[in-house]
């Protein structure tokens, strides 16, 4: 038995089964709607009364936050359930009669969950490029500035959400509706709890959704241009008018050693 082949087919079957469902189409539609709402300005990222110029770095950072928040929160419900399906269909019983090991099965489920979540992230990322062009503020696409927040912020979080979905299915009391409620409130409550901690100011990379990391870097830039910036950081449908824009060129991703001074991408994996 070749483990790589087993994992590939396990993840592939699970992935195909899920992306062909109506529920996935609905989620895809919602992700597209979210992208559209961002494109037309109904959803935006704002630091006090200011926002960044719509260049690749800003749009990449904004779409990363949208992806981590919405897909991280609701995507969990889309990917959870694959172990239960194996149990209900009897496919799990068939697997139990094969030499396949439990770690291989778990790994395959995790990869499949991750692939489904990342597909939605890709949809949002594509919308981001469209948003940058529609805004007309910067026509130059800087791919690294645009994609690095997705790679260093969104991907690790999606991997974490994918793993949590598998974990919840493996723990009997979390596998049903109770687990869904725990995740729903856990996710939304975790954010302010973490953000209020003092150590987040020193080590923003520890915050798993990347908000602290992006906020810290964007705030550094906005305060240079607008010294009256009060420190707020908001994402959503805003009534507050924008009174000024600043240019943010993105996080300078540095090695682990400089974590306290300039948060490291690598550290996010630990």
């Amino acid at each position, binding site marked *: *038995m*070749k483990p790589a*082949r*087993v994992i*590939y*087919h*396990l993840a*592939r*079957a699970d992935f*195909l*089964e*899920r992306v*062909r*469902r109506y529920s996935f189409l609905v989620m895809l539609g919602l992700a597209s709607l979210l992208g559209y709402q961002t494109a037309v300005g109904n959803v935006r990222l704002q630091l006090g009364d200011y926002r960044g110029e719509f260049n690749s770095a800003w749009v990449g950072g904004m779409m990363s936050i949208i992806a981590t928040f919405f897909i991280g929160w609701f995507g969990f419900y889309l990917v959870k359930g694959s172990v239960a*399906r194996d149990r*209900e*269909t*009897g*496919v799990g*019983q*068939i*697997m*139990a*009669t*094969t*030499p*396949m090991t439990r770690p291989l099965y778990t790994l395959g489920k995790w990869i499949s969950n991750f692939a489904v979540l990342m597909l939605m992230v890709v949809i949002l990322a594509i919308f981001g490029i469209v948003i940058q062009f529609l805004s007309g503020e910067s026509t130059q696409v800087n791919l690294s500035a645009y994609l690095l927040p997705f790679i260093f912020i969104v991907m690790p979080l999606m991997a974490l959400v994918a793993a949590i979905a598998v974990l919840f299915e493996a723990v009997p009391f979390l596998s049903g509706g109770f687990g869904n409620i725990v995740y729903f409130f856990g996710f939304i409550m975790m954010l302010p709890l973490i953000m209020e901690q003092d150590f987040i100011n020193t080590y923003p990379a520890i915050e798993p959704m990347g908000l602290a990391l992006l906020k810290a870097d964007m705030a550094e830039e906005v305060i240079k241009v607008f010294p009256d910036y009060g420190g707020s950081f908001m994402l959503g449908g805003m009534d507050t008018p924008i009174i000024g824009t600043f240019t943010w060129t993105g996080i300078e991703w540095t090695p682990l050693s400089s974590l306290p001074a300039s948060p490291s991408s690598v550290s996010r994996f630990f």
Partner: protein
Amino acid sequence: MRMLATITKPTDGSVTWNGVDVVKSPDTLRDVLGYLPQDFGVYPNLNAVEFLEYMAAIKGLDAASAKKRIDELLQLVNLVEAAKRPLGGYSGGMKQRVGIAQALLNDPQLLIVDEPTVGLDPEERVRFRNLLSDLSGERIVILSTHIVSDVEATATHIALVNKGQLLREAAPEKLLNELENKVWEWTVHSDDLSALKQKHIVSGTIRRSDGVQVRVVSAEKPEAQAENTSPNLEDAYLYFIGGKQ
């Protein structure tokens, strides 16, 4: 059946395959095992080829062997034309044929099928049990069923199990021989049927113009007018199970 298939561990007794304890060394059996569970379901949005590729990988077949084997099995279970259609649109019988195809992917020496004909219409049931009969020529097939006609049509050896205990294990002919002179038929008034069922093991009834023809399994002649008749496996099942209840 789940214990034999190495899914659950026995609380008592042992299961051995060629002398090897499969509880201690389950992979000894798993390498040569095909299993079709009761209430077998599928991934409804995969087609038969995708599903079988998935199962083949899990069973440890390499890509080339899997492709060849899947082609052969789709022919065997007569699903070539439907192979690219989503499994969710298959009938119960077609799903069961996919189930048997996945169980045969590793060309098992032991094939365990648990209640495979439940829910199938008569035509599909006959087709499925004929398939099982054909497969039994090359391997051991353990078929669990409550449908006695399936057993009559396919089994060469029968184990009667009641509440987890083995009651009898023999060839069908031997079981039937034990029932010789123990199956009786006669006609009673329909009003007497209820009382008769309380007193004897009734294995069949047929409504007639002059009353109800009853079929009773009993070691003694139950009534003066009762006439001896040939036993079938349903009679044997009721006799041995009924005797223990």
